[in-house]
């Protein structure tokens, strides 16, 4: 018998006992539905976290600072070393943070794999104001590879000369701006105090409004031009040395494998620096979520295994019912392989039906529920679609269910294949 004929006959056969087949399909439906939902949950939350991480920084950067040499209470005070500079820092008493100078920048830039080093200048603006209305406090940070999720407007132009910023959505109403879209293109004034106590007002243009985010600190992103202007204003009148000492630097590298990143980290550690990628800082969140999704998946698999026994039962009854038919087909020269193929294909087909219907229902219902949640209870977390369905994982679920169904079908199929035509034909 040709494979295509086996497929066609198996499909026809699976509809011969409609009630029994539909009940089995229902059992598979439940498992496939659950598995698709848990998968969608994983994809949705991972997507959200990935976009949130991208919003606060690039995945191809290290945040580097000097490894603290303080800390061992037993070792007593450190000897003075003229080459080190210490920044006054918070934290527990006795902990110090050493400043990074131009020499450190050169050392970090020389580590193999590092493509660029940018010092992080701490900018402390005093206020932001629009149209001479109320003033509000503001914290700013340079883009440094971050991809903020915009509610309106466009990305910053880092190469241009126009000072630009992306404002968090929460600032729009307090500043007196009409709405997100109207805010784009407006000029705001940022005030910053220099070392002598004079306040410098600096004008910048709003190019984008950022969605309220999970990980962001509610600060504005600024482009290079604005960053330089603010730094210049802040540094007016300060001793020259203060402008060449930084608490931390950002080191960028080309997209690399985990082991290459590890090598670079080791190189930096050997040179006396502590480097952290964004994943180091936020990766644990993902681990916890993956753990929860894993447990949910396990429940879905248990449901599918129960459905697998349903398939065994259904097909064993079919084999029993069709004993004489199998005997006749074998008498007419049908090989055992074809008989096995016929029944195991039928099982896989039942699996395909159940999983396709289950996944489709899960996608439909999941998208609706996710949309409703995003508009309702979860509306504070803009951009979060708690259930997202990617074609890859959904196809994976369908294939997995078909594989389980096929395995469940092998026992009945083997029974059918080894039947003796004579015994089958005598069967009353």
């Amino acid at each position, binding site marked *: *018998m*040709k494979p295509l*004929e086996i497929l066609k*006959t198996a499909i026809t056969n699976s509809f*011969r006992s409609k009630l029994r087949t539909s009940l089995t399909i229902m059992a598979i439906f439940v498992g496939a539905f659950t598995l698709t939902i848990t998968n969608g949950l994983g994809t949705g939350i991972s997507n959200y976290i990935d976009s949130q991480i991208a919003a606060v920084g690039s995945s191809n950067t290290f945040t580097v600072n000097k490894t603290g040499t303080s800390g061992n209470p037993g070792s007593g005070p450190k000897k003075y070393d003229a080459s080190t500079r210490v920044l006054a820092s918070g934290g527990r008493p006795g902990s110090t943070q050493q400043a990074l100078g131009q020499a450190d920048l050169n050392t970090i830039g020389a580590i193999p794999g590092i493509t660029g080093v940018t010092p992080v200048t701490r900018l402390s603006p005093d206020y932001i104001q629009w149209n001479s209305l109320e003033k509000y406090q503001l914290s700013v940070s340079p883009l440094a590879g971050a991809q903020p999720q915009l509610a309106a407007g466009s990305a910053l132009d880092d190469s241009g000369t126009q000072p630009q910023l992306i404002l968090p959505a929460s600032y729009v109403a307090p500043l007196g701006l009409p709405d997100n879209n109207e805010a784009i293109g407006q000029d705001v004034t940022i005030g910053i105090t220099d070392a002598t106590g004079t306040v410098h007002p600096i004008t910048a243009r709003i190019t984008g409004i950022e969605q309220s985010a999970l990980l962001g600190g509610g600060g504005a992103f600024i482009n290079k031009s604005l960053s330089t202007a603010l730094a210049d204003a802040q540094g007016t009148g300060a001793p020259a040395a203060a402008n060449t000492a930084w608490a931390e630097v950002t080191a960028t590298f080309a997209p690399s494998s985990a082991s290459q990143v590890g090598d670079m980290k080791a190189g930096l550690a050997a040179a006396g620096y502590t480097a952290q990628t964004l994943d180091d800082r936020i990766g644990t969140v993902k681990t916890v979520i993956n753990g929860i999704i894993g447990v949910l998946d396990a429940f879905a698999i248990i449901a599918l295994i129960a459905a697998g026994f349903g398939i065994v039962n259904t097909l064993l009854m079919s084999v029993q019912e069709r004993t*004489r*038919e199998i*005997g*006749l*087909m074998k*008498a*007419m*020269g*049908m*090989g055992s392989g*074809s008989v096995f193929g016929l029944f195991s294909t039928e099982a896989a087909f039942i699996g395909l039906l159940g999983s396709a219907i289950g996944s489709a229902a899960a996608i439909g219902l999941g998208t609706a529920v996710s949309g409703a949640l995003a508009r309702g209870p979860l509306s504070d977390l803009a951009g979060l679609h708690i259930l997202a369905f990617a074609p890859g994982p959904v196809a994976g679920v369908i294939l997995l269910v078909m594989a389980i169904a096929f395995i469940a079908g092998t026992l009945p199929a083997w029974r059918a294949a080894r039947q*003796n*035509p*004579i015994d089958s*034909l005598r069967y009353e």
Partner: protein
Amino acid sequence: MSAPILAACDLTKTYGRGPDRFDALKGVSLEIDRGDSVAIVGKSGSGKSTLMHLLALLDTPGGGQIHVDGTDAKTLSGRNLNALRNSMFGFVFQQFFLNTASSVLENVVLPLKIAGVGTRERRARGMAVLEQLELADKARNKAGNLSGGQKQRVVIARALVNTPQVLFADEPTGNLDTATGRIVEDILFDLNSNHGITLITVTHDHDLAAPFNRRLYIRDGVLITTDEEHAA
């Protein structure tokens, strides 16, 4: 003269073992020539069905040899054996063994489907054989909705669709009334005399056996030369 289409030599077959041991066949030898019509006659339990199953290569003998068209059946295995049964033999059973939910045509072309013949040719050959048995108008009917005589004609059509050389019939008229049985009988003899198909029928019915070219009487697993019961 070519080799007989079927030759059996000293066939034995035993079912069970120990105290349940039952010798169904105790050394049967026979030869059937191409185009012959043979009735194997015996009471139930005489071993006639076992003999037919062995001759049709549906079962393997405990001892002895079967030659099909000069080839020792023992040398055939698996795929070859299935292919030989599919292309050389046709089967007609007393209980019909039709798939009642499928159409008449679907039932008839089943051996062609097993042989791997394409859909178009299957349909053409199926319709041709239904035409021959005057069932063409029933091709689309469900097999379950036919009368007993029609069902047996469908079974014969199914047996003929792959143009077999040997037709095995197990009590072909057993489930039919006398008039319908006569029609089926006529069809079988017509196939034998006009189409050269070797006809081997198993029956306990002496009236059915009477018109056959040869009658082999079997009792307690051995062939007997005379028809004692009939003579008595």
